[in-house]
């Protein structure tokens, strides 16, 4: 009986294996040899970087730099064999031969660190800043974040910092001065601060962890029926919708005699909603973005929102108006749609493209630039205001702002006829 069950079991297992698909292959891994790079990785990386710049940098004349000669000079140094740090120094010194901001290189470690690090949250005083070398080296506060250590200490936009912990700001520090302003949360710094029209004073700030935030702000210019909107230093997701809401609020129950768009501190262009904002105020061909090999016309289909296509416009610009905001100002000026007031812009309108390099590092190269419909190369010349007012951001206040006042006057002096705003503006410009 037992035997019968045993037999049945065997028979059953045989049966269950009937029509089976056969034996199973088991892979046998082998040791893969370590790579032997030829040419060496540093040489490959250098060549790839140099070539990427050679082929893609937007200005083929390299601003007069002999890029071919640079190749020969630096390749010799790289071929000699370098430590990782030395290699980094060589690459950075080669890049430094080009104009500032034309090329930025990051090591592999820096690339990974940037992916991990939240650049919007940091430990510092909580203010957007800009460096000025002249007439005296200083740091200008473009905007102070509400509730930040800077705000708690009474600092405001338009203030400037002359020294940190008794050490004056130096010309050679440039934008690296930010490293002295930032510091661990809880640490204290004594800042030598000057507010417009006042004597310098010492202010003690206790640093904290802050998240960079600022939004579109504005209101009505009293007794002028002119709206005013101040664009923040950095774009944010709702900037476009905030713009529409602001137009609605400013136009509520009234016809605006003009609108002032203040771009003097709009300094971070990445992610700025250029096309949607252009479409609010203009229509048609507004210039072109070009690379070494292609040209793309900026064509917008105008949308009249709360009279946005017809309201007379003045745009305030200055040395911190950079990137997409700079293109915005130049395009509306060229289209005869806005009068520009303030100081010249730096011409930082180049589009940046990322290139991966063989050692895992990467390089960002200025590969595109902007030219207006009338052919002005904004990347080379910057934007020149129609009305120059020689007052930097730390020479004005909310209450006393000659740049804004000049824009109000410009809007009020425009001939008010039934014709389009563009023609009125051209007539006004011709009058001087």
């Amino acid at each position: 009986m037992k035997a019968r069950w045993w037999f049945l079991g065997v028979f059953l297992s045989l049966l269950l294996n009937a029509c089976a698909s056969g034996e199973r292959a088991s892979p046998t891994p082998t040791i893969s040899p370590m790579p032997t790079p030829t040419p060496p990785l540093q040489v490959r990386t250098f060549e790839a970087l140099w070539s990427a710049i050679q082929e893609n940098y937007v200005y083929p004349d390299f601003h007069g730099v002999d890029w071919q000669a640079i190749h020969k000079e630096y390749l010799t140094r790289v071929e000699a064999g370098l430590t990782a740090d030395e290699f980094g120094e060589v690459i950075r010194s080669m890049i430094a031969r080009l104009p500032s901001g034309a090329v930025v290189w990051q090591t592999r470690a820096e690339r990974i660190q940037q992916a991990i690090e939240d650049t919007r949250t940091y430990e510092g005083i909580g203010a957007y800043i800009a460096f000025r070398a002249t007439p005296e080296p200083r740091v200008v506060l473009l905007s102070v974040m509400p509730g930040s250590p800077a705000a708690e200490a009474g600092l405001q936009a338009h203030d400037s910092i002359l020294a940190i912990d008794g050490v004056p700001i130096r010309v050679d520090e440039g934008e690296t001065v930010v490293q002295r302003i930032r510091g661990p949360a809880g640490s204290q710094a004594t800042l030598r601060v000057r507010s417009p029209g006042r004597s310098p004073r010492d202010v003690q700030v206790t640093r904290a962890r802050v998240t960079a935030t600022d939004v579109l702000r504005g209101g009505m210019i009293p007794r002028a029926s002119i709206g005013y909107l101040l664009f923040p230093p950095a774009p944010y997701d709702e900037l476009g919708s905030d713009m529409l809401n602001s137009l609605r609020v400013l136009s509520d129950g009234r016809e605006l005699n003009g609108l002032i768009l203040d771009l003097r501190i709009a300094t971070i262009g990445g992610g700025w909603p250029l096309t949607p904002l252009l479409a609010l105020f203009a229509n048609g061909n507004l210039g072109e973005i070009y690379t070494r090999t292609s040209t793309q016309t900026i064509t917008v289909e105008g949308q009249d929102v709360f009279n946005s296509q017809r309201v007379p416009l003045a745009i305030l610009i200055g040395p911190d108006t950079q990137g997409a905001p700079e293109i915005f100002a130049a395009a509306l000026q060229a289209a005869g749609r806005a009068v520009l007031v303030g100081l010249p812009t730096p011409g930082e309108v180049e589009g940046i493209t990322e290139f991966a390099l063989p050692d895992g590092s990467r390089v960002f190269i200025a590969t595109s630039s902007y030219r207006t419909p009338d052919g002005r190369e904004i990347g080379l010349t910057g934007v020149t205001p129609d009305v120059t007012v020689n007052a930097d951001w730390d020479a004005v206040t909310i209450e006393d702002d000659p740049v804004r006042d000049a824009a109000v006057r410009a809007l009020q002096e425009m001939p008010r006829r039934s014709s389009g705003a563009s023609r009125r503006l051209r007539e006004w410009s011709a009058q001087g």
Partner: protein
Amino acid sequence: MKRTGLGLIGGVLLSLLIVGCLPEGVRVPQSPLLRSLERKAGLIAYVGIDGNIYTMDQGGGRQRAITDDAKIPETAAAEFRLYQSPAWSPDSRRIAFIGVRGAQDTPGTASIFVASPDGAERREVFTSQERVPFYLYWSPDGERLSFLATVIATGNTVLQTVPVSGGEAQVVDAGQPYYWVWSPDSRRMLIHAGGEALTPSAERLAFLTLNGEVVEEGMTVRPARFQAPAWSPNGRRLLLAARTTEGKSALLLADPQGAVEKELATFEGTIAFGWSPDSKKIAYIAGEDQQPGVVGRLTVIDAEKPMAVKTAQEDRIAAFFWSPDSRKIAYFVPSVLSPTPEPNQAEKSARSEQPQQLTVLLTLHVFDVQRGRDRRIATFQPTSQFLGILPYFDQYQRSATIWSPDSRNLVLPAYASDGKPGIWVVPASGAMEMRYLADGLLAFWSWK
């Protein structure tokens, strides 16, 4: 009584014999007896609908709860604890999975656990409040887990590794999108990362040597449109897609140092591919770029003689998985089922802003590589979790399988007719209907 028992057994044996050798096109309903009598191969790990991880055999038996403390939030603000992404170790003795937990006003925490298949041993090998893992991939030697995680602060993706026996997690790389394959000796990775549509120049195809400090060395070829590179299981060859000097897209065979040896095929659009486990054959889908994923025709070639080509019948294949015995390929053909409009539905749709819900169905085929024969196995509505991984099947192929170790069955996460998500098993022979095992969302079979 004894006679009746013997008669019953005889009947069962006869039915089994019939089922084992049924002609194509004939399907027999599942017998409750079969699940207890058939030979079991490996175990299935799955995510239950309660958010816990379980294992079971293909009959639905030997069920073990690897976790039992999942908590599905009843409101958006409620406390939650969920487990997901089970991944079998190469020796099938351990399962790794991801756990996420949080509550209102407290930062969420994501962890990676490693447990034995019976749930007896469970260890947390990684925990973070800054990074959320979403994909796990064991090193072939079973000593490390590599995983992709989203950095909450930046939204970027990082690749990390962590020793399974305990130790610090290491950030190996960053990039988006990110695909990679381990070398069979676990010392290197071949990665394909970055270069989203707007910045192809940022795309990287490179080796990472993992020896304390990570050393990256880019390949010299320019990638064509593909996702996950492949390393042959025997370690001798690499498979990747690159642009040729004539500007064509080609599937290339390279040596482990990255030197291109052979152009296997040219293609239009995009491609996804995988080695057979015996390293002798290569299967690929070439066709339309779905961003992510691909839909196209499945071709099987001999790695040594690329001219030996076999092609599956269907031309809109979205994913495939090699059987462990390298003889068969399970592949999926998607189709969209439009809802049957009710009376006045058009009027309702016009009034409502809700888009009509479309149901995606998958038809599973098994392609016999030896004979070049194709068999339709089942059409089912996949769970959203399974549907979510299909566009990345080429990456999942490297780290998971839906095949049983004996190459006879496939595990499928699918909705039942009552709308309940479940884990099902279906024989690769197509001789029987799908068998429901348990309520669940996503399942993978153990390697062994």
